């Protein structure tokens, strides 16, 4: 290879260095390269190996140094960190607020139904009240909890045994966890999300309101309905909040990179 061609290849390789570095030292580097090639004490092989290794190592080093200069500024990183924190809180709020509204709203029909039936049974007692058709007057047939979104009612005696219901799962009347009845005994009412463990397990989750029936024949009234539709909406909200979060992070990343690049320190 002729001397001119080798020099031309090296001067082309110099264009790979960051602009600031190239402008400052390009000519001096090319001169050092010429001096090395002209140095009779060095073989061409040694010069070629040294220059090649130097090109690879120093190119990586100078580009990393340039990136550090552009983006490694504490103020820039702090701003990106704060914006990431704010966007994360916003995304969490975007998810948590609608999720709570949906979940609380899922209890609305059950609250009225449970209160209405509990008031009636307070007057007549759970056994007598049921025998007088308290449930048939309030339900239009048996609700299949696994499939239907309609609300249903279940009446329990004071020991938590189901006495009657307008809803069934696998032909049975499910009971909430025992702790729920203990809580209602002490506090009068409880609202729970509960997954009945019956049959083959449909994975159906119930939003339930449990109220205490006092008087001569005490017991409990449970009004519930499947959370299936609410959970679908919650999943949509989660999906949208997740997309919004990723979008905000991408925007912050883009803004930080763009700002860091245009506002990078100019060193002559």
């Amino acid at each position, binding site marked *: 290879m002729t001397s001119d061609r080798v020099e031309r290849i090296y001067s082309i390789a110099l264009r790979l260095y960051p602009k600031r570095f190239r402008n400052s030292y390009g000519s001096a580097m090319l001169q050092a390269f010429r001096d*090395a090639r002209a140095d009779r004490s060095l073989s061409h092989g040694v010069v070629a190996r040294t220059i090649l*290794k130097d090109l690879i190592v120093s190119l990586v080093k100078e580009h990393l*140094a340039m990136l550090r200069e552009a983006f490694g500024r504490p103020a820039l990183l702090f701003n990106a960190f704060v914006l990431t924190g704010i966007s994360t809180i916003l995304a969490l709020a975007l998810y948590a607020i609608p999720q709570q509204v949906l979940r609380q709203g899922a209890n609305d029909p059950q609250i009225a139904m449970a209160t209405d039936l509990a008031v009636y049974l307070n007057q007549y007692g759970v056994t007598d009240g049921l025998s007088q058709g308290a449930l048939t007057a309030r339900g239009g047939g048996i609700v299949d909890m696994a499939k239907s979104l309609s609300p249903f009612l279940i009446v329990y005696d004071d020991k938590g045994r189901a006495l009657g219901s307008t809803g069934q799962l696998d032909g049975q009347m499910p009971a909430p966890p025992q702790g729920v009845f203990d809580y209602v005994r002490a506090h009068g009412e409880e609202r729970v999300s509960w997954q009945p463990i019956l049959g083959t397990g449909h994975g159906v989750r119930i939003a339930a309101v449990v109220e205490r029936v006092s008087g001569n024949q005490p017991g409990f009234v449970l009004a519930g309905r499947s959370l299936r539709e609410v959970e679908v909406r919650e999943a949509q909200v989660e999906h949208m909040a997740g997309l919004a979060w990723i979008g905000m992070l991408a925007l912050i990343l883009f803004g930080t990179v763009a700002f860091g690049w245009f506002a990078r320190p100019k060193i002559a």
Partner: protein
Amino acid sequence: MDTRSDPGAPLTPAVFAILLSLAEGEKHGYLIMKDARAPEGGGVRLGPGTLYGSLDRMMRDGLVAESGMSDDERRRYYRLTAPGRRALAAELRRLDAAVKSARSLGLFPNGSRS
């Protein structure tokens, strides 16, 4: 002023070789490369990229200063600053202590325990 993040830290072979070369006086890039390559200069094979990258950072750290430039900008001359001289002295003391320790352990081929 030496503005390195850790002024007491050992110098890299390239920085040490450059400081040692400039301790003799002002020099341009290729002369520094040549001095660094010699065993007594550190035995470091510096290429132009590593040399000027190191000089750029050393100037920012205040260890060396550019003292001149040829009209065509092909040759840039550098000199040692006072902080550079102190950094070199500190490194030489560190190496001297290490050499003394190695000598006392009989690690030199022709050396003996003192």
